[in-house]
Structure formats: structure tokens, C-alpha cells
């Protein structure tokens, strides 16, 4: 039954049709919010051919899973997803709709919020039930301030970054309900195919060790040295904005608020001064190691370990010693 305090999450599936790790994190967080608000948690799963995925997701603590299954929902087209989800939520008036802040979520979230007239908070790093309402935390001013926000509307829609919630342990299955997807007859936006960049490296967002270079690296050759270090740890190479702008590193490896947000166990910042927008992309990392020739560089203020020196002279011996240690 519709309830003003119910929480809905919108599930995203991997290409292999499993709930994404972020979706499971939303389930954990959604459960907490629902408990705090005295409502139930539901998950909505739009897509095609998702019977197994729905059963899989139903083990993660929701009261029920709603499946919107239609061939037209195979790929994410906002012109189809929006009316389908708008139709689903009209008459349900949940307290909160929570979506992963992914490529799809960052596109769908605002569209759905505007269509439903819901308050909207994107790219959240925290969410809690407090004083009878949902409070959402997000960085502003490039991460130099953290704002806690509330919606003045009955429903709030939030998109959440990775690692805000934690995935619950799977347990008993809950009810899976197939809902008819009201696919529109006419659409304006057409999808014309995807191109994938080939990368042999570990995806930046999943790497346990990230080695990142800044302006001081000086060229594409320097990034080869960073790659050598990253490879030792099975990690990934990142870059701040200047090297990307200069074409020394591909845009897909930019770390920062305008690039990728990472939180590896070890973050090694090489020749990076530490601009606000870069720090916003890495400040949740486990241990931060900085190598920079400028002792005043701000990066040292947000690092656990630092070496003041020219990276060209520091890095080779550091890499060599790390190799020895890892081989012991």
C-alpha cells in the first residue's frame, strides 16, 4: 500500500544482469532510512529479462521488488525510462526515491524529480532519517564545504555516490511483483550506438591502489613511470586536470569532481599540488601518499605520508623498493 514514509530505490543492473554493487549499497542505506522513518523499503527494477536479477535483489532486505520489464527498457533511453518511472511513482508518493549517482542515475534523477515535482539532491555522500525527515549530505564549492539539505516537498529524490551505504548480507527472498511498464508511443531522443574505449587496466573506481600524476609530471612519458608503479599493486593510474588538458593522459583517468571520484586503500599523488576540485575526487581514500617538490603544496595537508622532492628522483627508488618488498 502507498505510504508517505516508504523509501524506493531504483536498481541498476550490470551487463551480466546482476544488481550492481552500488544498488546493493542503496538497499542497505534504504533499509536504514525506512527504519528511521517508520516505512518500508521497496526496489524498482526497470529493464528487460530480469527474472533472476529480481530474485537475487529480493534477498537484500526490501519488502518487495517491483519489476518494470519491457524490451524498450533494454538500453537506457531517458525518453522511455522517464515516462515509465513517472507513471510508476504517480499515486505512490514515497518519502524518498534513491538512485545511484552513475552515468544513468545522474541523468535520470533530475528528470524524474522535475517530472514528479520532487525536491532533488544529487551526488550525496550521506543520508539519514532525522527529526522525522530525510537529511542528505553533499559537498559544495568543490568539496570545500559539506551541506546538509532537506526537501520541502513530500517526496525527495536523491542520487548517491558509491560507499555511502553498505550492502546487507543476503537472506530470505521477498515478493517480486511484475508491473506493466507504460512505454510511450512516441519518443524524441534516439540512441545511435556506443563506442567503448579499450583498456587493459583495472578500472579506476575499483582499484585498491591509485597512482595519480599532476602538472609536474611534464609529459606522457612520465605517466609510463606511474603506470609501472601502479602495475606493481595491480592498481590504476589517474591524473589531475592539467595533464588531461595537455593530452598526457586520457580524460577517462581524470580524478576530481569533474572526473572520477575514487576512494582506494592507497592513493599516491605524484607532482600534484592539490586543487579543491582534485581533492574532492580522492579525499575519502584510505592512506594518501604525496610526492611533490614544493614543501608548501596543499596536498601535504591532506596526506598521511609525504616526500618533498623532485618525483623524477624520488619515484624510481620508491618503485624499486616497493617491488622488492612485494616480492619478499
Amino acid at each position, binding site marked *: 500500500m502507498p505510504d508517505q514514509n516508504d523509501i524506493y530505490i531504483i536498481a541498476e543492473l550490470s551487463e551480466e544482469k546482476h544488481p550492481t554493487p552500488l544498488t546493493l549499497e542503496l538497499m542497505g542505506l534504504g533499509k536504514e532510512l525506512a527504519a528511521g522513518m517508520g516505512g518500508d523499503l521497496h526496489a524498482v527494477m526497470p529493464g528487460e529479462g530480469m527474472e533472476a536479477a529480481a530474485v537475487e535483489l529480493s534477498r537484500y532486505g526490501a519488502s518487495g521488488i517491483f519489476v518494470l520489464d519491457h524490451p524498450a527498457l533494454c538500453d537506457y533511453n531517458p525518453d522511455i525510462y522517464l515516462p515509465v518511472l513517472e507513471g510508476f511513482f504517480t499515486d505512490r508518493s514515497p518519502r524518498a526515491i534513491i538512485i545511484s549517482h552513475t*552515468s544513468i542515475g*545522474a541523468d535520470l534523477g*533530475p*528528470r524524474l*524529480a*522535475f517530472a514528479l515535482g520532487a*525536491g*532533488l*539532491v*544529487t*551526488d550525496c555522500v550521506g543520508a539519514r532519517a532525522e527529526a522525522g525527515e530525510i537529511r542528505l549530505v*553533499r*559537498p*559544495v*564549492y*568543490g568539496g*570545500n*564545504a*559539506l*551541506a*546538509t*539539505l*532537506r*526537501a*520541502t516537498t513530500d517526496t525527495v529524490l536523491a542520487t548517491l555516490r558509491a560507499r555511502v551505504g553498505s550492502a546487507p548480507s543476503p537472506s530470505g527472498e521477498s515478493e517480486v511483483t511484475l508491473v506493466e511498464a507504460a512505454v510511450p508511443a512516441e519518443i*524524441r531522443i534516439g540512441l*545511435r*550506438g*556506443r*563506442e*567503448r*574505449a579499450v*583498456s587493459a587496466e583495472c*578500472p579506476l573506481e575499483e582499484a585498491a591502489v591509485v597512482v595519480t600524476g599532476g602538472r609536474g609530471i611534464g609529459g606522457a612519458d612520465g605517466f609510463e613511470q606511474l603506470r609501472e608503479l601502479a602495475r606493481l599493486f595491480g592498481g590504476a593510474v589517474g591524473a589531475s*586536470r592539467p595533464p588531461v*588538458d595537455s593530452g598526457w593522459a586520457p580524460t*577517462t583517468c581524470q580524478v576530481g569532481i*569533474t572526473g572520477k571520484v575514487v576512494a582506494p586503500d592507497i592513493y599516491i599523488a605524484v607532482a600534484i599540488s592539490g*586543487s*579543491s576540485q582534485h*581533492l574532492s575526487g580522492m579525499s575519502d581514500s584510505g592512506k*594518501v*601518499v*604525496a*610526492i611533490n617538490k614544493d614543501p608548501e603544496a596543499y596536498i*601535504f*595537508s591532506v*596526506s*598521511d*605520508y*609525504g*616526500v618533498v*622532492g623532485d618525483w623524477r*628522483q*624520488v619515484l624510481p*627508488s*620508491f618503485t624499486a*623498493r*616497493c617491488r622488492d*618488498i612485494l616480492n619478499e
Partner: protein
Amino acid sequence: MTLHIVVLAKQVPDPEGPPTSFEVDPEERRVTVRGIPPVVNPFDENALEAAIKLKETVGEVTITLLSAGNGISKAVILKAVAAGADASYLVDDPAFDPASLDSHASAAVLAAVIERIGDYDLILCGRQAADTNAGQVGLGLAHLLHIPALTVAQSVEVADGRAVVKKVMPDGYEKAEAPLPALITVSGEIGDLRYPSLAAIKAAKALPQTVLAASDLDVDVSGLSRVETVALEAPSRERSCALIEADGPEEAGRMLAERLREDRVI
């Protein structure tokens, strides 16, 4: 083909500025920015660059730059206009201070100005503003204007009355298209805004500029915002850094690795 492109430009504090220039006042729930200049949101600059690229390839294109806010720097806007716009709309009013409007209210203000501008084929703006990084207003504006929106474009082309973009994806890009009029949010991959020459900056002063205040527009922002700030705090990002001291940089590199092993980091 003639094409009228409106480019949205938000004034923000320079996002490449050091963190020390942002002073957080938790009492007033306000951030005061010190010592760094205002700039046009870099992603909006990318949007303007996309518009200028279309001008070079499509034929007859006119570009109108639109900035709304409070205390907009004329010099900042002039430099952007000089890069390749043909006209500008400046909506400057304390009522439109970005800090007091949420994305819904901001989109409503912009929709009112677009209404006033009249005919347009394409609206381009950044994928997000570099201060809030919320990425909402473009999609909100498209919703209010009932036009299709494509987001996070790394390239924009126009042909046969349709806009075609390459949308940035985590592992590459996706091609998508929509009929005009449409709104497109633009990403950094499209390229930095070109620098205007001094002559162009001088010439830009003579280009038509419409300056409006809240009273000139058919929009009441009071009560429009759907989100409000409950608290504002400075994040605790600072860590205590163990600086490795050694005889020379090579020794420092070795000692850094040793220290990480001692502390069981590696």
C-alpha cells in the same frame, strides 16, 4: 540553415583556487570566497566553445550568451562574449543570488528569460556548475520548456533539424540525437574555450546586451525552491602528514617504501 543558440553561463568562484580561499560560516550557513576571482563556470565555457564550433561548421549561427545571478562581473561576461557570441542577456538581481535558489527556482528564472529571448533552436550549458556540481538546472530548464535534453556531450553536431551528440560514458561514449529545439549539457572533453583577442574584446563592447532585473521578468522565485540547507560545515579533510626526511631524494624514495611497510600500508 540558420541556427540560434543560447548558451547559459553561470558565474562561479574559480574552481582551481586553493581550498584556503573558501571560508565556511556554519552559523550563517554560507561560504565566503576570498582572494580568488569569479569566472564563468568552466563547463559553461565548454558549452560556449561547442556553440562557436557549430558556428564554424554549420553556417549561419547566432549565439546569445545568458547569465543570471547576483553581482555578475561585466569583465568576466565580456571576455566570454568576445570569444564568439553575438549578443548577451545579463540578469543581475539580489533576488537571484544562486546561494538562495535551488535548481528548480534557478531553472524557472532561466525559463522566464528564454521566454523573453524568444526564438531559439538550441540551448547549450555545462554538464554541471563548478560550485555546486549538482548537474540539475539544465535538465530542469528543458523540463520547463518541454524540449528534449541530451546530457554530458563530448561533441555536438547539428544536421537536418536534429542535434547529434556523443555522450560521455565511463568506458567510452554513446551517440544520441534529438530534434531541435533541444537542450544539451556539455562536458569538458569538447575543448577549452578559445581566448579572445584584445581587438575582439574591444569589439564585443559594442555587441547588443540586454540587462534585466527580477522586476523585468514574469517569475516569482519566493516559495519555488524545493530544497533548503539545514547545516553547512567545513569538511575535515586534513590529515597529519609524516614527512620522510632523508639524505637526498633517492634515499627518501626508498625510506618512503620502508615506512609504508612498517606501518603495514603495503
